[in-house]
């Protein structure tokens, strides 16, 4: 099926937002779930959320270690210094609010 593309008079008044799925958010592993080794509680500047560790199977992070989180999944282990640097980058990019909103959104239920 073919449709015409947007006309010049398309009514779309909202400014389209940034790309939060591309943000890498640093978090500190607080605890690994006792009944699911792929589920961990992380702390992102005071906000605690559950994330998935399944993509770090070859090199599982332990409580106290830091990870970069993409869309609710830990994607790489990083140092505490890199975590602090990444937070300051997000701040400079004006993405802190977006990142925190993103983190708060992980999981449909609260874990606090």
């Amino acid at each position, binding site marked *: 099926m073919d449709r*015409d593309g947007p006309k010049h008079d398309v009514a*779309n008044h*909202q400014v389209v937002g940034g790309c939060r799925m591309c943000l*890498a958010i640093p978090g500190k592993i607080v605890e690994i779930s006792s009944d699911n080794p792929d589920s961990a509680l992380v702390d992102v500047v005071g906000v605690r959320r559950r994330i998935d560790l399944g993509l770090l199977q070859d090199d599982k992070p332990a409580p106290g270690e830091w990870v970069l989180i993409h869309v609710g*999944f830990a*994607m790489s282990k990083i140092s505490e210094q890199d975590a602090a640097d990444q937070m300051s*980058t997000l701040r*400079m990019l004006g993405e802190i609010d977006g990142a925190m909103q993103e983190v708060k959104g992980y999981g449909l239920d609260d874990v606090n």
Partner: protein
Amino acid sequence: MRFVDEFREPELISKTAEEIRRLAGTERHYRMMEVCGGHTHAIYRFGLKDILPENIELIHGPGCPVCVLPMGRIDDGLAIAQEPDVIFAAFGDMMRVPGTQGSPLEHKARGIDVRIVYSPSDALKLARLNPDRHVMFFAIGFETTAPSTALTMMRAKAEGIRNFSVFCNHVTIIPAIRAILDSPDMRLDAFIGPGHVSTVIGCRPYEWIAHNERKPIVVSGFEPLDMLQSIVMLLRQLKAGEARVENQYKRVVPWEGNRAALKAMAQVFQLRPYFEWRGLGFISQSALRINDQYAEFDAEQRFEVPGIRVTDPKAAQCGEVLKGVLKPHQCKLFGRECTPEHPIGALMVSTEGSCAAYYNYEHRKAAMVSLSSIA
């Protein structure tokens, strides 16, 4: 240099900028493409152009997944959303992106069940919470998000969940770079490689760019100093007549990537023969589809998909901007018909798109300057 003082390590930044000026000299022009939309956003946000000498031109690449998604795919996904009992789940980034019949958010206002999720695992959770409904996750992104979609589907299969599917729009970055390099009007000298995609795929997949195309590529972090250092590394290679893959972002990107993530992708996805990219057209083997072992979780197999194709207006010159032939403001529609409020072309759709980034920072800055000069 007015932004420099706000950055970490301002002295190191000044020194690196000085080194760039020394290396760049004045004899020739250098065109470097930053592939990743996150880098594009950072370059404008940090005002890096004010730091760089004029003969270094940064071309903004195709690495914004929202921008390159054809409008027809949004129409197709929203067509499925209108089936009875379907919940349409997508990242917040997608909510305001226009289809021909409106954005997901506008569909929600019309009574379609559209939900924002922050993670594919939240979409799966929605399916668990709504056993009498069907949750379709509208998946989008490069290799940064594709492994998470894959692992979520593996979890759904292991749990025997029946009311969950994925409308897969995942794309891969390498074929897009190849398409840009293959185009006859290509004028690039070097690449700033994507940071977070590379945490997954590693640095090896870029080797052909260096070996076959003789273009240096440096995988880079996102801080101002990261990007300036990457430019130094590229200039050193170019000056020496070398073409290698280098990793400036070693603290996060392992050379081999993330094997578990690659394994999850291989388990669930296979390459599509071709896929359309807004601004670049059809590119062979550039996107992922769900393989037969996971067919029950493939929304394109479970539902009737209209297969809508939407052609961008001919006047929109997104392809030329993507290849660095035109700067965003040189497109005939830029800032007139095509604005972030009324995006017509792909690159105006998300703030990480090069035209939207240019518009938000440069265009508005220029408008402020001309206003203040009147006052």
